[in-house]
């Protein structure tokens, strides 16, 4: 008899197959009784209880929020001994770590530990409990090297790109400065042509791009700072590469350009390093600005692009292999925001016009649950689903600013929380309902770049003297 198909298989060696039911602790089970009087110790099939526990947790996370999953689960486990037994099935915790916290790699001993860790870490984010630290570096050899333009974070590393082309990588666990990577010396058009536009980390390797379109690849640990050019920039034909990013799975690199008409998006297959797509009119209005970036005004941001993996299917399918996961790009300038599928970039999945207000390009980010955030010049923040552009929540970031003027706001978002740096203050909102939570105790002044994942927040202050600020919300501090 085949086993029950209601859930992933259990690993605790419980002797029953899924097809039949039997009592765990003494008592005889007689099958569904025809009379409506029920046996006192009626037993629920364990696979069903597992599926039920998962459903209860997922429902709670959808209707209330991710942090509601754990107490809902705990209530299920405390019902009776049979129901409690399911809490020992690591497969259940694996499934929920994936569904609720988006975790596919096991960083702890068991999936239960993994789930508890991310629950506690999210709780720390909610309450503003973090440890503040400093990442220091001392190998700056020119004035432009102090300006951090972009940052990318993975589970293990933080990579920071500077206006002089340097990429500095730090180990998040030890806070050590691991390596500095620099683009090849060559003739470049403009003082800031070699400024770093974006960085992609894929496990042990890193790719970074310069404003004039070079893409370099390096190994983070043990690479000795050696880089290999994967693509040579062609500023004359392509314009400036104003932002460079990749998706979590590491499959694609996406570059946003400004300066040449109808060449806004470049997409590379990061495995073959082949350029597979060039098109897009998004940045046509920003052509002149794109060129100017190469010469001066490195602190301006013409456009931003972010990539996220979205599940494009109407229902949540239990069998994850059958979910259709696609890499989706969100690209934004001050006047327009566009969402497109990387496999089919000509088709626009959705777009938003900023009308009179103007989007603050540096406020745009995506989170792993396929949402994006953007703030306009009136301070209105909107969090939307990438697939449908349906708004999830909205809030106002406050602060002054004359309508029509460009506000300086640096923003980022992780699973559940958005951070906005403005006027020297870093403020945190939860993005299920748009509730303002708190601001960071540490005042670091104007911020040049900020990035967050589910555990860390990193920020480079404009006045920073060879340091990067790091906040660790991890549960095991």
């Amino acid at each position, binding site marked *: 008899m085949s086993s029950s198909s209601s859930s992933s298989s259990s690993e605790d060696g419980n002797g029953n197959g899924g097809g039949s039911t039997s009592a765990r602790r003494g008592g005889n089970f007689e099958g569904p009784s025809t009379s409506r009087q029920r046996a006192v*110790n009626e037993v629920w099939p364990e696979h069903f209880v597992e599926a039920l526990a998962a459903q209860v947790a997922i429902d709670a996370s959808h209707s209330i929020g991710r942090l509601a999953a754990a107490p809902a689960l705990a209530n299920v486990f405390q019902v009776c001994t049979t129901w409690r037994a399911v809490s020992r099935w690591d497969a259940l915790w694996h499934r929920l770590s994936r569904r609720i916290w988006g975790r596919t790699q096991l960083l702890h001993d068991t999936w239960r530990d993994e789930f508890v860790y991310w629950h506690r870490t999210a709780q720390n984010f909610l309450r503003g409990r973090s440890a503040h630290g400093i990442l220091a570096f001392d190998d700056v050899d020119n004035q432009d090297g102090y300006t951090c333009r972009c940052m990318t974070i993975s589970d293990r590393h933080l990579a920071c790109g500077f206006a002089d082309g340097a990429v500095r990588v730090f180990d998040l666990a030890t806070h050590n400065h691991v390596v500095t990577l620099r683009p090849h010396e060559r003739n470049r058009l403009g003082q800031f042509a070699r400024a770093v536009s974006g960085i992609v980390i894929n496990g042990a390797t890193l790719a970074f791009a310069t404003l004039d379109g070079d893409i370099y690849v390096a190994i983070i640990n043990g690479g000795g700072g050696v880089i290999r050019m994967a693509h040579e920039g062609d500023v004359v034909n392509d314009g400036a590469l104003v932002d460079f990013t990749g998706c979590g799975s590491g499959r694609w690199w996406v570059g946003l350009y400004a300066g040449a008409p109808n060449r806004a998006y470049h997409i590379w297959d990061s495995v073959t390093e082949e350029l597979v797509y060039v098109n897009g009119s998004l940045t046509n209005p920003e052509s002149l600005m794109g060129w100017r970036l190469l010469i001066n005004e490195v602190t301006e941001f013409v456009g931003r692009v972010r990539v996220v993996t979205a599940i494009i299917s109407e229902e949540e399918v239990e069998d994850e292999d059958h979910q259709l996961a696609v890499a989706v790009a969100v690209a934004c300038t001050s006047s327009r925001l566009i969402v497109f599928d990387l496999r089919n970039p000509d088709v626009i999945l959705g777009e938003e016009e900023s009308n009179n207000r103007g989007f603050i390009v540096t406020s745009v980010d995506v989170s792993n649950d396929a949402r994006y955030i953007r703030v306009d010049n009136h301070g209105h923040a909107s969090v939307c689903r990438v697939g449908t552009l349906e708004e999830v929540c909205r809030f106002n970031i406050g602060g002054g600013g004359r309508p029509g003027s460009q506000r300086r706001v640096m923003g980022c978002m992780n699973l559940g929380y958005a951070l906005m740096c403005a006027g020297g203050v870093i403020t945190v909102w939860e993005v299920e309902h748009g509730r303002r939570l708190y601001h960071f105790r540490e005042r670091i002044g104007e911020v040049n770049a900020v990035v967050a994942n589910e555990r860390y927040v990193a920020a480079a202050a404009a006045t920073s003297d060879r340091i990067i600020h790091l906040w660790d919300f991890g549960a095991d501090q």
Partner: protein
Amino acid sequence: MALELKSSDNKIFEVEELVAVQSETIKSLVEDGCADNVIPLPNVDSKTLELVLDWCKNHVDMKLDEEKLKEYEDKFIEVDQAVLYDLLLAANYLNIKDLLNRACQKVADMLKGKTPEQIRETLNIVNDFSPEEEEEIRKENLWAFEE
């Protein structure tokens, strides 16, 4: 081709094979060539089996009409809790994935926002923990309620 299924109370049901093989359990029997005679289902009574077969038949009939099927499923699962329990046991035994999922969702809806005691009351489950076990579990799950 028709199959014959026998409930625990010895009632025979004749069903189309296409309908019956929505049960993975029965499907395996058919594939193994064991379905020539009457298939005994000692764990399912006739009342429940009738309901289950109605589910299976409608899933074959309405396969292409998602809206109609959803309407049917929502109505089907509006049963009293005792029947729901029998249905889920039968679906588990017969391994009918979509019925199990629907029943699971229904029970999950019933448990929304409930404490363990309230869950026990709703589902007629006895608290079979010893006081020591109860304290143990409470501690085990403290992390979920931390602020």
